């Protein structure tokens, strides 16, 4: 029983990370139908910028705030310079643009930072909490709580504010939204910025657990995408549930089956979802009227 619990806790830890990445994906997808594969780099930037500012002498909390602002600026730049000029390009083209941006950001990070692994001190210390014979890090609870908080805030924003309605309008029908006076460019840009900020916050919170380096973004983005597919593209709750479920699948596969195939789980999940349930757990069935 203790073993099962321990695997579950490990699964929750990685799952929380995937959940935050997935929420970032969802936000941008909802606003612009673009799947932003540079999402992983935002997470990397959050962690790495904080660490390097810390080395330069800036206290960690301030460094974290600056890191989030830097990532937000990068997200905005990605939209302004990469996505907006492409205008009416097809979804595939836009996705490839984001993949290119991800490679570019990784290359820049390699040069500005270095190629080694780095860590941050945990918020509440690194002594694990023991529950039922298994242990969980306090930092994991922080990450999980933050994921829930961010989703709640997002939901409140989207559902309860005028700007939130504008986001829904933009994602429902771009042309109609423009016609009623919504500045869709600003809305989509803001979504990119938020998404980058969420990714960066995830990066800062998660680095004490998983360490970070210039190239963690790629695999994170792929697994976050798997989480989004599992949860249903377009649904914020689906993103969180998908992320946590994916983390749990990975941990149980590593524990009960074989640790060598842990990374393969995410890709098996994508295939399974696409074959059996393409709309994911919480997604809406797509109906095309002819």
């Amino acid at each position, binding site marked *: 029983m203790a*073993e099962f619990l*321990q695997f579950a*806790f*490990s699964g929750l830890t*990685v799952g929380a990370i995937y959940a935050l990445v997935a929420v970032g994906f969802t936000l941008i997808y909802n606003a612009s139908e673009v799947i932003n594969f540079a999402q992983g780099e935002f997470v990397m930037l959050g962690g790495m910028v904080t660490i390097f500012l810390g080395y330069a002498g800036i206290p960690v909390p301030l460094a974290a705030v600056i890191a989030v602002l830097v990532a937000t600026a990068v997200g905005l730049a990605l939209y302004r310079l990469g996505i907006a000029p492409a205008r009416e390009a097809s979804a595939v083209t836009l996705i490839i643009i984001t993949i290119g941006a991800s490679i570019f950001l990784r290359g820049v990070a390699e040069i500005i930072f*270095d190629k080694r692994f780095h860590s941050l001190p945990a918020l509440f210390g690194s002594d694990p909490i023991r529950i039922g014979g298994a242990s969980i890090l306090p930092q994991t609870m922080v990450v999980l709580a933050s994921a829930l908080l961010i989703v709640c805030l997002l939901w409140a924003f989207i559902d309860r504010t005028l700007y939130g309605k504008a986001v829904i309008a933009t994602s429902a029908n771009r042309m109609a939204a423009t016609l009623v006076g919504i500045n869709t460019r600003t809305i989509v840009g803001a979504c990119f910025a938020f998404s980058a900020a969420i990714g960066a916050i995830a990066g800062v919170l998660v680095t004490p657990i998983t360490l970070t380096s210039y190239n963690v973004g790629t695999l994170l983005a792929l697994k976050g995408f798997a989480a989004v597919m599992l949860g249903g593209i377009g649904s914020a709750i689906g993103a969180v549930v998908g992320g946590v479920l994916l983390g749990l699948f990975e*941990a149980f596969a*590593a524990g009960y089956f074989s640790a060598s195939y842990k990374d393969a789980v995410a890709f098996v999940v994508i295939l399974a979802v696409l074959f059996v349930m393409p709309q994911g757990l919480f997604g809406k069935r797509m109906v095309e009227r002819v």
Partner: protein
Amino acid sequence: MMQKTTIAAALIGLAVSVTGGSALAQVKVGAVLSASGPASFLGDPERKTLDMYVEDINSKGGINGQKLQLIVYDDGGDANAARTFATRLVEEDKIVAMVGGTTTGTTLAMIPVFEDAQIPFISLAGAVQIIEPVRKWVFKTPHTDRMACEKIFDDLKRRKLTTVALISGTDAFGKSMRDQCVAVAPKAGITIAHEETYGPADSDMTPQLTKIKATPGIQAVVCAGFGQGPAIVTRNYRQLGVEYPLYQSHGVASKQFISLAASAANGVRLPAAALLVASKLPDSERQKSVVVGYQNTFETKTGQPVSTFGGHAYDGLMILVEAAKRAGSFESGKLRDEIEKTKAYVGTGGVVTMSPSDHLGLDLSAFRLLEIKDGDWMMIPESAS
């Protein structure tokens, strides 16, 4: 038009031959290192060491009246990239010797290239299969994984811990050390009751460690790997509250491991070269002046703490240089012969004496048993535990 180009070409040729006066007498030595990627805390100090000592040698006039030109390529820990760079060093750069191959994987990929080209290759990687069976053109400076297993098992026996679990990386060094440990365990009286593996780029080893914790009868855990993996294993180990002693291999012999593993590293034991405890060695130790000298030079020039990996690169370069001095030339065949005749060379890794059947030249006494305490290395006396 043609005249102008010819004159320009002639002037350039003249300029090159004048300034290249020293360049003409430069001897090319190649190095393919993993300065980036998962093995970066091995490859980066190696690179820095080779750069600073080649510069130092050249500033003192070079060897045999010739200056050394060091050509370094970064393979990022990828064996395919390493092999491509090795081929480039042989065919385009035309090196006379090679000191490099940070990891077992990259070394094994490059060996055929240097054997075919008949260029001596001093490897900086750990696995025993690099020099066993003995290959004519391949040597190495770090202690082997088999020696690490033997040293660890010796200490385990002294502490009367005979049932162990083994967790190893799936990279070439991790696999090789796992195989060596399994092979020498019966002779050492150790039983390996449970085994786990992890991928070298994994960031969470709690599932594997949970299974180890749940196995009854385990008295100690041995981790075989290098780079970031063992650091995460160590962090997860303390996070799960596993009580048994944890042993690492010499693949973590760098302060970067301690900074990555933080307070979890306290109490971890590992076999390593005397270099790590240079200042704590008694003056009567033969290695003392060499290791202290290297440590001071490295730490002053780079501002980073010394690591055994840089030490292995230093040993590799110096063995090559001494061989070149004895041979009186840089012809690859003569270099190889003299490298093989290295006798009682006092290096950072130990006292090296090579022979046609031994291309490493170190024995178990070159390895010291260390324990990590408060962020620093402590020597463990080998009579008591």
